[in-house]
Every structure is written in C-alpha cells, then in structure tokens.
C-alpha cells in the first residue's frame, strides 16, 4: 500500500489520526472541565488527594497493565511486518487479555465504591475512634442495617429510619471504630460513593467511564481481528498489518489518556 503523495501516509492511517484529533478535543474538554470544577470547588468539598477516596495500588496496577497492552499491541504489528502471522495473532490475543484485565480491575474498583457509603449529618457528632466531632461518617452498612430504597423521581436514597454503619478507620490509619447506629433525624443526606456523592466522584466516573468505554470499543475491534485476522492475513498480509497498525494507534491513544487520568484523578 503506497503512501498518499500529499499526506505521506496511507489513507486509513491518516483517517485514524483525524479521528484521534477529535478524541483529543473530547478528552481535552473533560480535563478542562475538571480543572474548572476543582479550582472553583468550595473549601472542603474536594478531597485533598483523589487517593483519600480512590484505590492507588489498584490504579497503579492498571497503569502497568495498560502500558503492557500497548507493548503487546505494537509487538503484534511488528511480528506481522516480519511475516510471522501466528506470533502476531498471539500478541493481539495478549492485548485483548490485558484489556480485559484492566476492565475487571475497574469493575472491582467501581463495585467497591457502590458498596461504600457516606452519611452527611445535620449536626456535629462524636464517633468513637475519631478525634473531635465529625459532620460526615463514611463506611460500610452493617448486615443488620435496614435495606435502603431510592426515590423513584431522583434516584437518590430515601431518608431511612436509621442506619447501622461500620465506620472506616480514621484518616492516617488506626483500627476500625466500633459500629455506630445513626437515627434518620440526624441524617442530612446519605449516599454511596457513586457519582451522586460529590462533584469529584461525578468527574471521576465520567472520565474513567468514558475511558472504559474506549477500552470496550478497542476490545471489540481487537476481538474482530482475532477472529478473522489469520484468514485476512493469508490473503493480504501488508493490508492486515496496516489495519493492526491503525488499531494500535487508537489503542496507544487510549493508553495515553490513562497515563494522564491516573495522576490527575488518583494522586493530585
């Protein structure tokens, strides 16, 4: 496949670069919004570090997984260029598996957030194990806590009669404080650590959710080439290698976005 005389590359690759340009704008708008929301957040409403709420070791593991998948992707292309179709497909399969690993880890991260609750109180309250009095208690619902129901119009949790909470250890470490019973009259708002919890978590779920959808999109394309690639490659290996290169360009971009999302959301 000859490069186009004006663009200097074959048309499919040029098309992918144009698509990636639009993707930079999409994620750029979200990063810009993140800065605006963070700078404008009233004091005390944005966590000091994302790590106060999010799981850094899991995200660091996922960073390594995604970088690994970028390498296996580019290796798939390199082996196809060396006319070794079997090895190329093997690296493509490894990319698919690493992408799946990323999503599985993300699933556990998300699930943990939806089973973790914050109780915002009407007035300051003393909680055993915490210094002074607190206005918010976070933790997991005890097994004997009544089931929560959501309002049908807003989806927010309805005010419960009471909740029984296993509070998180205080910031800076320490043992789990004993279980507390909080009456409904003391509760201003109750939320899991989903997007409704705060502007920070809404931003986190929007950005990582959109990134996760890009991973799913990439897996669909990689899965398609895993299923059909060997036959395609035996007919026209050069064209197949080009398709894998284009898929790789998209995949490396998805990796690149995560390289910025990880420090911005988790560490800063």
């Amino acid at each position, binding site marked *: 496949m000859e*490069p186009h005389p004006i*663009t200097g590359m074959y048309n499919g690759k040029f098309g992918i*670069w144009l698509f990636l*340009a639009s993707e930079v704008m999409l994620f750029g708008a979200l*990063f810009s919004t993140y800065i605006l929301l963070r700078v404008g957040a009233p004091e005390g409403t944005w966590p000091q*570090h994302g790590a106060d709420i999010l799981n850094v070791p899991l995200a660091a593991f996922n960073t390594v997984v995604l970088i690994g998948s970028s390498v296996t992707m580019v290796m798939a292309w390199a082996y196809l260029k060396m006319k070794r179709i079997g090895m190329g497909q093997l690296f493509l399969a490894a990319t698919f598996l690493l992408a799946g690993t990323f999503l599985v880890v993300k699933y556990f991260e998300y699930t943990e957030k939806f089973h973790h609750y914050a109780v915002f109180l009407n007035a300051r309250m003393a909680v055993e194990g915490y210094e002074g009095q607190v206005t918010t208690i976070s933790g997991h619902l005890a097994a004997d806590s009544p089931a929560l129901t959501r309002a049908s119009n807003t989806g927010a949790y309805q005010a419960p009669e009471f909740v029984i909470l296993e509070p998180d250890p205080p910031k800076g470490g320490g043992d789990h404080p004993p279980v507390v019973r909080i009456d409904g009259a003391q509760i201003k708002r109750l939320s899991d650590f989903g997007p409704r919890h705060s502007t920070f978590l809404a931003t986190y779920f929007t950005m990582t959710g959109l990134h996760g959808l890009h991973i799913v999109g990439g897996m669909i394309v990689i899965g398609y080439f895993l299923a059909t690639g060997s036959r395609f490659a035996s007919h026209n290996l*050069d064209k197949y290698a080009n398709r894998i*290169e284009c898929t790789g360009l998209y995949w490396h971009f998805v990796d690149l976005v995560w390289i910025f999302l990880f420090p911005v959301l988790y560490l800063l």
Partner: protein
Amino acid sequence: MSHHEMSVEDVRKHVRVYLLVLAALMVLTAVTVGVFYLHLPIAAAVLVALAVASVKGTLVACYFMHLISERGLVFWILGLIAIFFAALMFLPVLTDMDSAGV
C-alpha cells in the same frame, strides 16, 4: 523510511526500542507513585506528576504510535491539536479571571 518498505532486520531494531520504552514507562510509573508517597507540596506535586506523565505520553506517541518516523501533513494536524488543546486548558484560567474582575 516509511513502514511499507521495512526489512525484517529493521523491524527487529524497532522491537528492541519498544522493549526499552516499556522499561522506561515502568520506571516512570514507579516514579509517579513513589513521588506521591513523598507528600510534596501541592504545586510541586502537580508539576512533577504532569511532567512525568508528559514524558510518558511523548514516549508512547513517538515510539508506539511511530510519530518519530512519520513525515508530512500529520504534523500540521498535530500542531492544530496542540493549539486547540492549549486553548481548552486555558479556558478555566480565563473564566477565573473573568469572575475575579466582577
């Protein structure tokens, strides 16, 4: 040299570079996480985190996305992306100045 005329030996050289870039990316990921646990002041933490992420991003774009061996029109597109992206990043600053003047 464009990719359609690469020899097997050329590709082997590429593969060695990919493995070096992988090692560099892993080290830089460790640096990102390690620096976080140093609990630097916020300005320094932002600077270090974004600088390391930018180096990692550049490595990915140059070597995995082959930008280092591309020529021609794609750099005009990338230049435009850079300008519009910078404009997007400066929007919050402009908004802040606007409200500060009221």
